[in-house]
């Protein structure tokens, strides 16, 4: 139950972060917004490492890690960059649905291929989640067509 709460909390923090990042980008520009984000994150994680030094593994174990696993940091910047490119060109209602499709089904594939985890419930749950998103996206779409000035409002969020 505690991990379920943590996972929900991740979503809450991500949205708070998005709002703050939008404000930082508006004020300082996109590259500077991302740079400040990563600078502060690198500093705070370095502090965390110093505080938790006892639970850090030996350097030798770090050398054995597959280089691919280090790509996460680069991919993080790439996704932020891509997202900024997509937002002005794809209606907001599609962004939520399409990103969900990519993220959820790639997650299920990774769970299955690499972690050997497969459950019908997760697939059924994922499909229900998608159906709900599509229902809401269609409602948003209908309102945008009836009220075109609402487009900018929807995009901003």
């Amino acid at each position, binding site marked *: 139950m505690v991990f*379920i709460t*943590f*996972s*929900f909390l*991740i*979503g*809450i*923090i991500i949205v708070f*972060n998005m*709002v*703050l*990042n939008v*404000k*930082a980008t508006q*004020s*300082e520009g996109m*590259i*500077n917004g*991302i740079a400040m*984000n*990563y600078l*502060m*994150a*690198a500093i*705070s*994680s370095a502090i965390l490492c110093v505080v938790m030094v006892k*639970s850090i*593994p030996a350097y030798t174990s*770090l050398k054995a890690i597959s280089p691919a696993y280090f790509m*996460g*940091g*680069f*991919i*993080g*910047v790439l*996704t932020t960059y891509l997202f900024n490119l*997509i937002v002005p060109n*794809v209606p907001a209602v*599609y*962004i939520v649905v399409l*990103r969900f*499709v*990519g*993220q*959820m089904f*790639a*997650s299920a594939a990774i769970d299955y291929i690499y972690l050997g985890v497969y459950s019908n419930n*997760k697939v059924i*749950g*994922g499909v229900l*989640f*998608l*159906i*709900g998103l599509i*229902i809401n996206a269609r*409602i948003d779409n209908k309102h945008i067509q009836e009220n075109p000035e609402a487009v900018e*409002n*929807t995009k*901003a*969020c």
Partner: protein
Amino acid sequence: MYKSLTIMNGVLLAVMVFYNGMLSTITGPYISTLIFHALGLILILVISAVKRNKLPNMRKVSLLFFLPGILSVVTILLNNLCIPKIGISLTTGLSLYGQLVLSSLIEHYGLFGMPVNRFKREKILGFSVISLGIIVMIAI
């Protein structure tokens, strides 16, 4: 083209979360978080140099804009804690659900200076189906 880029964005997010999770199982959550952000910082500084971008004067930047970096660390740490226990799909599903709930609240009330976009009653059906999906996912 941009629509397929949007799907690609989601796939990349899943791959990123997976790589971080795997790195974390080897190095522990703290070093993996540091590696993730240090490499990201290097890449964005390279992009900044290539694009001849002028970095801001840190003393003049609002303190509030430094908060996302700290929150990113908290997010990655929580991800790295949850993924080995409940898998990526459920962690991602619940996190997306949290995003949906908070962003709907922000839109409805126009919080944080965001434009107001009232919650439409017709959306209750969609939200119920989404909530049912999450309940099915949890009840493994």
